[in-house]
């Protein structure tokens, strides 16, 4: 029963991912992306990783979707879909082969679950990997700078050209 739940969620996620890639309009791809996020988040919840599931749902399905929609509203949804540089069969072949091999080789590893020293997220994050927290803070700062770049109306380089 549990397997079926997982199967439905993940098949849905992979299907959405495929649709997102082949979608002509970026806006619809954005919506598919939000769906993937929600489905992955559900899977995480079923796995017992509730906190990360919540983060994934709010950030992945919420924040990133909003950012994408905003960016699209700024640059316009061109429905641009030029032919890909790499022949599609080649791309498909290489990726498919890699994926099959990866799945084939990782399969035996995924059998038993060990149950040793269970940390919860909070203690793991704040005691074991404090450097991660610092790096996250730095990252968030650079993210803020990124948002400023997103919102700034003038192109920084263009201004200097005018002066010259």
């Amino acid at each position, binding site marked *: 029963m549990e397997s079926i739940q997982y199967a439905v969620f993940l098949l849905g996620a992979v299907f959405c991912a495929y649709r997102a890639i082949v979608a002509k309009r970026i806006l619809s791809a954005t919506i598919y992306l939000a769906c993937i996020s929600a489905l992955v988040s559900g899977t995480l919840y079923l796995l017992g990783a509730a906190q990360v599931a919540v983060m994934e749902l709010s950030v992945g399905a919420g924040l990133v979707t909003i950012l994408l929609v905003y960016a699209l509203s700024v640059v316009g949804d061109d429905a641009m879909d030029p032919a890909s540089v790499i022949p599609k069969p080649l791309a498909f072949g290489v990726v498919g082969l*890699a994926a099959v091999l990866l799945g084939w080789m990782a399969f035996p590893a995924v059998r038993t679950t060990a149950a040793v020293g269970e940390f919860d997220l909070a203690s793991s994050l704040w005691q074991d990997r404090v450097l991660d927290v610092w790096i996250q803070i730095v990252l968030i700062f650079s993210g803020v700078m990124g948002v400023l770049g997103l919102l700034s109306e003038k192109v920084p380089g263009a201004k200097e050209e005018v002066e010259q």
Partner: protein
Amino acid sequence: MAGIIVALVIVLPWAGALAVWLARNKHARLQHALAVLFSVLTAIVSLVLFLFADTEPAIRIPLGKAFGDLTFVPDGLAVLLTAIAAVIGSLAVIFSVDYMHGDAQLGRYYFLVLFFIGAMTGLVLSGNLLFTFFFWEITALCSYGLISFYNDDPKAVAGGIKALIITQVGGVGLLAGTLIAFANLGSFQIADLLAKASALPAMALAWIAFSFLVAAAAKSAQFPFHTWLPDAMEAPTPVSALIHAATMVNAGIYLLARFYPAFEAVPGWRMSVLLVGLVSALIAAVSALIATDLKRALAYSTVSQLGYMVYAIGAEGVFASQFHLLSHAVFKALLFLAAGAVIHSVGTRDMRRMGALGRQMPFVRNVFIVGALALAGIPILNGFWSKELILEIGLEHSPLWAYALMLTGAGLTAFYTLRMVWLVFFGEEREPLHAHAAGLAMKVSLGILAAGTFITWLFFGGLNGLLASTLPIHELERETLLEVLTAILSAPATWFALLIVALGCGLFWLLGRKSALAQGGWLDPFVETSFGFESLNRWIVQVTYQVAERFSVTQTGELNWNILGIVSALLVVLVVLWLGA
């Protein structure tokens, strides 16, 4: 309190770097003022830090089990090197106010200089090997940026790249040693490595010891990596003073001194250190005999003096090496800055074109002579005491032939030092070079350094006590200033060494004056190729370039193709794993 001081001494120069950068190049005077302000503040704070010297970490920032704690330990060794970096660095910055006057891109210059000073203080204060490596790499980056500061000059760029690549060899050595230590100890703490060194497997300890020796040799421009320092001469002269006296090359000596107690028992390690120092000291001294570029001659003398320090560590004289490092930092900064004043004034570095400049710039002549006498080891200047200390220890703890060769080196030092002074300031005028007197900022920093050359040896007792009490593992011998002075003055070896120095001076006076300008004759080819090791260094640089160029083909700049490359590589790895397993 100690924590705040330690934090300040690292953060202040970096904050200054940021401030200078934010001031923009349009406001040159503001940039000068900010750079001087922050560097002088750092220097003051670094001197205050002497009061807080301690064996225990002053700052401990937990980073979780995976990385260990980030600690900063203000022990005697760290405090001494911090003070050298900050004080000499600040004097170089003050000097730069005149030297770099009117230069475009001051922001980049001061940013790199201040960033450099902060990285050096961080490097010596860090108690965590991983962060020592981090700061180590920042100093390499800054030295590259500063050596190639005049980036429209191909020679400057080549010199910078060479310094970067060769010191990276050292960086790799440091990283390898760090990782081996971590694999065996499960900790990045320097204190842990020092305490548990004897419990490590002998093989692992030997690997760490020799990796660190490679790191130190590359960083301190020691044999066989000694060729990058003379090539780094294209930098603005205050930067040379910074690299030679305050930062960069001291890091290698620091590394050896720091880990000496852990590695001394490794078979062959001490002898290797001794030999590296000996060979560097001698071949650099010989090279300095015939160099015609003023800064190049000084650079060779740096390699040679660093060789003395390395030799001292190999001969169990950790404190002597650090004491000579202090003396050397002061007089070499003085020499470089005085040389900078000359070069800035006459616009050439070629000693063959100089001559009789002493009449036009008496102040610079006087301070240069002070520095030169210290370098030659003339009493009572600081270079005399520290060099005698090293020779004394060499006589006790190293083979007699090594001691004899080092003595010869002292004679050579006296010879080439006098030659430099003679060629630049005395003799007849060879070209009508117009020299103008040094500016006020230049005079201030030169004056302070000249005074320092007279007095730093007086700190022997205090420094010795400080290092001995805060470095329990090093088991340093405690001696007061008076004891050491009497020991040095009463030892026959001292008088013998002085005789050799006098012999060097006398030989120059009798023979060298006329032939000072002559070519080195049979020596030339050796010096030009750095006794054959130029080819090794050039090979390292070339291989790096070639590998980089080969790989640049793979950088198509097209996203899709790059991704295809990544996925194909993944496929290859998977296939290999599949077949292998």
